[in-house]
């Protein structure tokens, strides 16, 4: 075996070893490293029993209620299979609107998610106004493609 070929094999072995360890590490972390949980994952009991966590989903159209004279807003967060009512007092991101994806941080109090921070999670679609794209809403795992448009028109 020439020295060059030997170096090739050494490097190939190193790449395989590193690749395999990273592959198994990532497999183990597949269900973790989630920035947010969906309402379905919360229903499966994956949310912590105490303390804050992040809840992500789509703002159900028609569910947004603002309290006159206060900064409090109530809406329903859904992934199409499960829904959780959310209450939040504070400044919403500009992109907040019905059908939009949001990630809320807070905890569950008697079935209502009391949020202390709301971030917008928009979809990967970019286009001028007036065009319908199924990428307008972000993809929430477990939900139907097309966001809440598909949700609300579903029988």
């Amino acid at each position: 075996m020439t020295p060059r070929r030997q170096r090739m094999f050494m490097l190939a072995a190193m790449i395989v070893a590193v690749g395999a360890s990273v592959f198994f590490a990532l497999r183990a972390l597949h269900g973790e490293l989630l920035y947010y949980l969906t309402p379905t994952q919360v229903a499966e009991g994956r949310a912590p029993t105490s303390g804050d966590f992040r809840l992500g989903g789509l703002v159900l159209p028609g569910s947004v209620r603002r309290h006159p004279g206060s900064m409090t807003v109530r809406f329903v967060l859904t992934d199409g299979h499960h829904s959780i009512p959310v209450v939040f007092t504070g400044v919403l991101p500009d992109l907040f609107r019905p059908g939009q994806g949001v990630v809320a941080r807070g905890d569950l109090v008697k079935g209502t998610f009391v949020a202390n921070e709301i971030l917008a999670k928009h979809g990967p679609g970019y286009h001028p106004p007036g065009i319908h794209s199924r990428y307008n809403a972000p993809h929430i795992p477990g939900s139907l493609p097309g966001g809440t448009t598909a949700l609300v028109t579903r029988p």
Partner: protein
Amino acid sequence: MSGRWSRWIHRWASPPYFYRVSRPWGRAFAVVSFVAIAIGLYGGLWLAPPDFQQGNGFRIIYMHVPSAWMSLFIFVFLAVCGLIGLIWRIKLAHAMASAAAPIGAAFTAITLVTGSLWAKPMWGTFWVWDARLTSELILFFLYLGVIALSRSFENPQTGDRAAAILAIVGAVDVPIIHYSVDWWQTLHQGSIFRGNPFDGHLHTTVAPSMLWPLLVMWLGFMCYFGALVLWRARSEILLRQLDTDWAREAVGAP
């Protein structure tokens, strides 16, 4: 496999030959880069329509996304240079990696800064520790690690080899960054390209009127990298070979 490949690599790897041919190539890259970035910026900032939800704020995409692509591409470039340098013992490959690493670090920094400035008005925060942002930040530290490691040894060859190994191992972060938005639930939105480019099912989530300036900017950034890496590699091999006749002649030393 080593015969033809090795001959081709060794011819290009001859420092005097590289020093001679890299000059016109570098200039060509620089000209294309200048023209493409000018057209891309004009297309992105003036011709492309405002976005349906982000208005004019989306235009930072024309810096952010091509920079992000470059940050991934240049790290793969480092890993390939490292492999060539380690297997064929080609010094030029290490010089190229050494020239490319700071450029890649700069593109990664631009990606992180523009992303942060974009996230604040749209998402509502400068930074989140989701899988996409965190893996891109790790890439920035990997670049710094490669740069630091190559300069940490008294023997420059040892530094080159250590940096090459870190680049090869660290390249595992590149697919992780790319697929992070599919593998984990992130705040960052999904990729703007979907499907497989090899079976004809590749499609994009961006309207054509907004997409073309993005691709032109990417071409401009690639050529900018090509020009800059050749220019920096030329200085690098001159410095490394100052004890040879051709290099002394090239810089006009007696």
